[in-house]
């Protein structure tokens, strides 16, 4: 497995882990997550990493090496460097989707409604990757 693939798995996992921890720490974030049921798939083509996240009952389950059979939507990225930039917080995911840098299959509206899920973390941990917030 290449270093970039491992790094992307780490970044994705780190964000989802921090999201699940932030639910315990921040009542406002928890309130925003409440009522959301979503299965999000991330695919890096041609050969991974592929990950998915299940948000249900204010809990987050993350698989950093797998494909879900029935995701609500799948984000497809053809460029590992772009993926790294997005999950370091240097390139907002909503912008990358709007620009077509990430292809979305499935319920795009649902995705755009919950991009806060990751973007709210950037002011907290983006600094680690040199993001000015």
């Amino acid at each position, binding site marked *: 497995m290449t270093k970039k693939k491992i790094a992307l798995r780490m970044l994705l996992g780190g964000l989802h*882990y921090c999201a699940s921890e932030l639910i315990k720490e921040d009542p406002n974030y928890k309130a925003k997550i409440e009522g959301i049921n979503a299965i999000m798939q991330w695919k890096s083509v041609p050969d991974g990493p592929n990950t998915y996240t299940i948000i249900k009952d204010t809990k987050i389950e993350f698989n950093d090496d797998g494909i879900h059979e029935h995701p609500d939507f799948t984000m497809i990225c053809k460029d590992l460097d772009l993926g790294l930039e997005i999950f*370091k917080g240097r390139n907002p995911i909503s912008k990358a989707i709007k620009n077509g840098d990430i292809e979305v299959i499935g319920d795009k509206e649902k995705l755009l409604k919950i991009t806060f899920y990751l973007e709210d973390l950037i002011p*907290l941990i983006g600094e680690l990757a040199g993001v000015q917030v």
Partner: protein
Amino acid sequence: MDLKDKMQIKALFYYVGRGLEVVSRTNEDFQEEFETLDGIFQWHVGEVSMYLIAKKGVFETHYDVIHDAPDVIFTVEDIEKAKEILKGSLDGTSAYMAGDMNIQGDIGMGQKFATVSEVLVEELSDLLL
């Protein structure tokens, strides 16, 4: 410890912990170099904790928990120093010598963990941070 610091330490713990889990299972050079490493390594930074178990060089990480019989305990009170250590910009030996990191237990095993961490930093830190 404010929320931002806490989340950053949690993120760094995840990068180290999950990074070691993945690299120790996929990198043949790593496996060859650390195939005899066995130990339990407890970390505390402020109120955030994790421990890692190494068995024959393969790592397993547990977050937000304290092991009742670790071989080594690393404690860093200064949050900024802890970030530097976990990011690899400050090496553990220097931090220990300067009194920025407290090590209790088997110091030799602590040094082995420092070597393991250096490999991880070389592998991934440029890409993660």
